[in-house]
């Protein structure tokens, strides 16, 4: 059972985000980068599969030099191989990223390709299903439980107010939701062992893709803006519960026009 896990490196969720001088990117200076939180569930599931059924877990990322660090963290947790496609992924749109990843995955043994349900920060939730289409394999998105059998898998998928149980053939794409598992931390032994694993570093051209396949943007940021800071509204004292309740009702009726 071989898995590929696509991971993206994103600014730490606690970061203060500043808009860069061009008004179209965020300013990366001083930002701490982490493995996108949903990708951690994806990685953990692949490692557990490997522990149960053997095989490789290859982590793949498309990104600038700094992304190699994210691959190292995944190796330390138990991934067995890593591929880094170097490039300015921020200047590619989701389909561009998906083309790069699909080309990389074609060169790797894969029964299941794991993604996060969305990259935290940009929150697109696009790359996984796009890769599934490019590879012509089935997908199950927003997965909270997974069982892998012979040549097929069964996955629980979260939908509005309910859960679907979907079966599909392998190879397949899974996008991971919180709840799928509890990701482990890297052990000291893992960190040491990871240092010995070489990262297979490639360029977009090495994968047979041209810049226009990848960097022709169908979705472009024309501008970023900071939302108007909410000043905080009216504050009232709730010491008298029924008076407070009446204030709330009045607000809901008059301002929100509800009730």
């Amino acid at each position, binding site marked *: 059972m071989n898995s590929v896990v696509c991971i993206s490196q994103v600014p730490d*969720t606690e970061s*203060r*985000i500043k*808009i860069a001088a061009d008004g179209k990117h*965020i300013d990366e200076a001083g930002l701490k980068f982490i493995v996108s939180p949903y990708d951690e569930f994806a990685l953990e599931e692949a490692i557990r599969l490997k522990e149960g059924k053997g095989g490789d877990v290859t982590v793949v990322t498309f990104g600038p030099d700094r992304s190699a660090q994210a691959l190292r963290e995944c190796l330390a947790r138990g991934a067995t191989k890593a591929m880094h496609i170097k490039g300015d992924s921020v200047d590619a*749109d989701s*389909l561009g990223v998906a083309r790069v990843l699909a080309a990389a995955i074609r060169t790797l043994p894969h029964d299941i390709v794991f993604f996060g349900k969305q990259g*935290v*920060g940009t*929150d697109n*939730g*696009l790359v996984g*299903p*796009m*890769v*599934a*289409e490019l590879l012509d394999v*089935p*997908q199950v*998105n927003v997965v*909270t439980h997974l069982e892998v059998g012979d040549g097929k898998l*069964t996955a629980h998928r*979260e*939908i*509005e*107010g*309910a*859960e*679907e*149980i*979907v*079966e*599909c*053939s392998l190879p*397949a794409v899974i996008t991971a939701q919180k*709840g799928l598992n509890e990701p482990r931390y890297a052990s000291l032994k893992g960190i040491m062992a990871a240092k010995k694993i070489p990262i297979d570093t490639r360029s977009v051209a090495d994968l047979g893709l041209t810049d226009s396949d990848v960097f022709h*943007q*169908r*979705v*472009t*940021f*024309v501008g*970023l*803006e*900071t*939302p108007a800071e*909410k000043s*905080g*509204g009216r*504050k009232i*004292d*709730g010491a008298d*519960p029924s008076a407070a*309740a009446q204030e709330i*009702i009045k*607000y*809901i009726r008059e301002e*929100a026009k*509800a*009730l």
Partner: protein
Amino acid sequence: MPGILVFCETKDGKLKKVSREALSIGRKLAEKTGGDLAAVVVGSQAASLAADAGHYGAKKLYAVESAALDSYTTGQTTAAVKQAVDDFKPSVLLMGGTSNGRDLAPRLAARLGVGVASDVDQLDWTDGKLRARRSIYSGKVFGRVEISGTPAIATTRPNAFSAEVVAGGGAADVVKVSFTPVEVKSKLLETKTPEAGELTIAEADIIVSGGRGLKEAQNFSYIRDLAHAIGGAVGASRATVDAGWIDHQHQVGQTGRVVSPNVYIAAGISGAIQHLAGMSSSKHIIAINKDPEAPIFRVADLGVVGDLFTILPALTEEVKKAKAH
């Protein structure tokens, strides 16, 4: 003619609210492009939605009628909507940002070689291009994006656009789409509905959310009682979900759902940045917290400093009284 096509989903034989919202913003875009607004509905009863779609401005309804489309599978629905796109050749394709919409949009976009903007809360047509606004980095930044390619695809954030009935909007003209089911590699085995009858936070107009201030699982009854009385959905902070007090389906925030209801009531929730990421775009925010310094008050339109265990029951009583009138 640069037409607008909206993939509409149904529930209990009617269009989902988010699909009506997408039709309504689609109609405004169509006024600018000068093209037609059309809906596409799949499933054996597709044509029966003609009047419903017409009310929200659709001139045509592309009906892909096949029993193979009665429950959603990625492969079948992608093929069906692709057929409608090939027939109508829209400039813009919209769909609600539901679980299925967000499953379908990227798959179809990759098939068509076009771009998608996810979960948008504003849409406009300028200089022959679709423009959208998206909230990114936990709501710390708004990104304005331009989507090129034909069709340009966007999924709409539930509740971000209002659903508006068009005066005198007659039924849409039904256009049958010829469709042969494709072979798909996945199948739906079962749908589990844990809390039948409960409203889901994804599309609710009013959400009452509880946090660690509730102290223990059984006290979620304070939240449920109010939600029930007011006709809203039950939300929760991650701390309560992690503690096992309530199911993850209810979690609001960065690793839960992003919601933007008309009214969001947060009780016993501190207002951590990851929670705010999921609810700060709500239209009217009411916070109940005993700590006057709680960060939730910075985004609240109405903040009540006090004990939720006394205020929530009083509020539930007042709501019942108000509803009785």
